[in-house]
């Protein structure tokens, strides 16, 4: 990476770290403790922004998948792979924080409530997306199948939402928040969104380097895999 870009990346992560620290301090000192659930309710300020950003990351997978099928440029596939990984990571955080909330609110780590089920299915959809990628060796075949799955998975999300809505629900449908709580929630969106975007960008850059390295290796060693890269558009 050229020095100015590296400097920019460092500045970005330092800003994200500072904002994260500030929001944690805000959560501990400024935000009031919720009356019924106590301090555990504070997990909500992480849970909701991460959940929203999971959808954003899944949307990036969807757009990159369409981009690949449209233009057949491999960088779209690298972007989709990067966003897929972040979707899995963020969805795991949503699931874990949801389970901690559930344990405190309903006394069980897992209930088949619509929203927990929805998070679980979303997690499974994108775990499978990440699992199929290394299963297919030929890069262009892998990119095409992953792109089709990436589009199908995203189109499946509203259907999963509609289907789980038919299940009996114990989840709170709306939560009344004090103004301080609303402000904390809004503040938490900033570092979480910055983290999501930063992780996708970092992983995308790494994927680009890995692909360049693999292409170079395949060409120089003249392995059968080299044939897969012939005529490939980077």
């Amino acid at each position: 990476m050229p020095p100015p870009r590296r400097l920019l990346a460092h500045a970005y992560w330092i800003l994200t770290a500072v904002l994260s620290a500030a929001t944690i301090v805000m959560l501990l000192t400024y935000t009031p403790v919720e009356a019924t659930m106590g301090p555990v309710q504070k997990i909500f300020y992480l849970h909701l922004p991460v959940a929203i950003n999971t959808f954003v990351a899944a949307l990036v997978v969807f757009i990159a998948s369409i981009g690949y099928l449209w233009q057949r440029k491999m960088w779209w596939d690298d972007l989709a792979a990067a966003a897929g990984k972040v979707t899995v990571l963020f969805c795991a955080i949503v699931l874990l924080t949801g389970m901690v909330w559930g344990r405190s609110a309903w006394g069980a780590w897992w209930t088949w409530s619509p929203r927990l089920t929805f998070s679980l299915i979303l997690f499974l959809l994108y775990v499978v997306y990440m699992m199929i990628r290394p299963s297919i060796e030929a890069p262009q075949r892998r990119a095409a199948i992953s792109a089709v799955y990436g589009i199908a998975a995203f189109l499946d999300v509203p259907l999963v939402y509609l289907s789980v809505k038919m299940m009996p629900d114990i989840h709170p449908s709306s939560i009344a928040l004090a103004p301080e709580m609303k402000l904390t929630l809004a503040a938490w969106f900033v570092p979480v969104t910055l983290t999501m975007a930063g992780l996708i960008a970092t992983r995308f850059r790494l994927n680009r380097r890995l692909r360049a390295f693999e292409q170079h290796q395949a060409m120089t060693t003249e392995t059968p895999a080299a044939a897969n890269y012939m005529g490939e558009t980077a």
Partner: protein
Amino acid sequence: MMAAFRQIVLMTGKDLRIEARGRQTISLVVVLGVLIIVVLGMGLGAGRPVTGFGATAILWVAYLFGGVLCFEKTMAVERNDDALAGLLLAPVDRGAIYAAKLLTNVILMFALAVVVTPVAILLFRFDLSAHPLGFALIMALGMIGFAAVGTLFAAAVSSTRLQGGLLAMLVFPLSLPVVIVSTQMMRRLFQEGEPLGGTGLATLLAFDVIFLVLSWIVFELVLEP
């Protein structure tokens, strides 16, 4: 339009004729379906009557595994003697190839259901007498959606090495809305006596339409000799 329809009928006829002569897929799928029902019966304690809600869940396990086997086999036929290359060279729209494969898969899955469902009714004493047509409609719509997804990804993974496990892994999570909606609709239909319709039926129809249209569009991009 008529030409495309004729091509679809011809290709489906070809697949079904191969199946009728070899009977490799249907016998395998039916035996697997019955085995799954028997294993679940032993696990859950056979002899106890099961409601429509439980019946759907048990049947879906058999349909899902049987279906994946159908999808794999109908695509594997094209791998023999490079038949797929010939099919791709023929002046036939790729969408028509998809429609023909889908139709074959749906017919094979219906055949599976015709055998497995009565076995399950017998073993579990399902009481479907209240809404037999509702049950059939929900399962048929679910199967069409499942086959739409399965046919697309069977074509996509048929040229990769890890066919078996990979296809099931791809298709199962995508088909979960169908399983959830059908079981919930059965609960409402049989346990709560609600009429058929509303969100459930709309979701099933939406699933079918979305994946039929998507598969029709992208099938050309995933099919490779």
